[in-house]
């Protein structure tokens, strides 16, 4: 990947609402060049989506998130691909990772409440044929996600004017 694209990604991951014109000025590049690079990265699925990071604990609409360690038997020729797909197609599954170590898949699930998550694990996830075992961990509080700290700091302690 070229340097321009990397710099664009660095800026967009901090603020996805920056316009191509602003990015171009900040990087000292031509606007058309930046627009083209962004379009190309969208097309190549390097940029997958422009989403918003939400601190759901501040929203009344309550949500429960759990991380589930899944141990399963890989299939000949396909490895974990089929099992992963069967899991990630459920809308309540937020992320699925293939892991090194004591278990195979790490699954992140979001539900309205504890009961909903528990029922998904026992009815859907555990019943998949190649799944051997699951361990569910509920998330109690999010401190930092995707490099963004949720705690609010008093942002600027600087004197208003200084030499």
């Amino acid at each position, binding site marked *: 990947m070229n340097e321009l694209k990397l710099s664009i990604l660095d*800026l967009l991951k901090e*603020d996805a609402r*920056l316009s191509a014109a*602003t990015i171009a*000025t*900040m*990087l*000292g590049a031509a606007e058309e060049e930046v627009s083209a690079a962004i379009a190309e990265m969208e097309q190549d699925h390097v940029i997958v989506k422009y989403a918003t990071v939400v601190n759901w604990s501040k929203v009344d609409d309550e949500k429960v998130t759990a991380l589930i360690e899944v141990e399963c038997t890989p299939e000949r020729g396909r490895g974990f691909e089929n099992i992963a797909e069967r899991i990630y197609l459920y809308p309540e599954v937020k992320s699925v990772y293939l892991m090194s170590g004591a278990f195979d898949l790490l699954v992140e699930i979001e539900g309205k409440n504890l009961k909903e998550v528990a029922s998904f694990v026992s009815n859907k996830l555990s019943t998949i044929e190649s799944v051997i075992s699951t361990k569910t961990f509920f998330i109690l509080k999010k401190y930092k996600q995707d490099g963004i700290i949720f705690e609010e700091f008093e942002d*600027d302690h*600087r*004197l*208003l*004017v*200084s*030499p």
Partner: protein
Amino acid sequence: MIKDEEKPKVALADPSRSDGMQRYLASHAREIPPSGIRRFFDLVSASKDKDIITLGVGEPDFVTPWRVRDAAVYSLEKGKTQYSPNAGMLELREAIGQYLYNQFNLTYDPGKEMVVTVGGSEGIDLALRALIEPGDEILVPEPCYISYSPITSLSGGVAVGIETFAEDQFKLTPESLRAAITPKSKILVLCYPSNPTGAIMTYEEMLPIAKIVEEHDLIVISDEIYAELTFNGKHASFASLPGMKDRTILVSGFSKAFAMTGWRMGYACGHPDLISAMLKIHQYTIMCAPTMGQVAALEALTKGGLEEKDRMMESYNQRRRLVVQGFRDMGLECHEPQGAFYAFPSIRSTGLTSEQFAEKLLLEGKVAAVPGHVFGKGGEGFLRCCYATSVAQLTEAMERIHLFLRSLE
């Protein structure tokens, strides 16, 4: 509640005398002119308007990197609360020496040619006090940082401002330096990259200056506190010019590049004869720079600390381009600042003085920026705008200034 009779007795100035306690002041202290920046600070502070965006600061918007703060906290937990050697921890001086070599190709002996100071400010003070005899003339290219001239007069020296111009990108020209030199000239103070103009001087541009310095047997105090904030190419230190190392006292520190303003960590490097004299003053007045600050500074110079620095520098550069373009788009002339984190647009086209403009912009436009005249000769007609603030704030500030300009038409 403390009863009246328990309150400590405080001697009050004799109210019958109109001069209060002024008569006790030494004339050199009384005669320091009040700082123009202080006046503007009071004006901004007096306005309780929470909506004001300030471009008036002179420090990074980053908090000191966590690894640096953590190192200092850890040292406190371990009880490292004692004095350090006068010149600073040897380990830190060695790290500074290595850093100056890697970054600017400078070679200083950490044992004899270096002193760790309380901010770059103390380095400037030590250098001027060690060198100035009453009547000596100190040449200062202006507009410049506001401390050189008052410190000079405290030592009985005379600061001679050399005006620099936007047409020359606020660089010191050999002609204007020559014109300012008299038989009393002793020191040339250089501050590039410059606060407030963002000007830099390249190696080639400094060569003729070095020649004049040699010819007239001058000493140079080179305040390179913004060295790392040089955006197109690498910073050249005046001390790295042929024959200039012995004639230069390099003053720098951690405040700007490592976002460590409140720590007050600086250093000065130079010829052993000069540094040992500065060290004597430092030893009697300060003893040593704060130990926890030195531990923090040492961490800043590790690989992890330097990576954080590079990340911050890149972010300043992006915002620099945004602000310069912003001023030009609204029709203000703005020379390209190649260093530090200030833009210095001209507001002459509005017909207002920089003080009038800054005051009106504060009250009507709700943006604080520092009027150029406070930085000395050549500053009138300009505005110092610090772009070390978030992109969202900068964008909003630019819109406000644009609207304000339109309201003046």
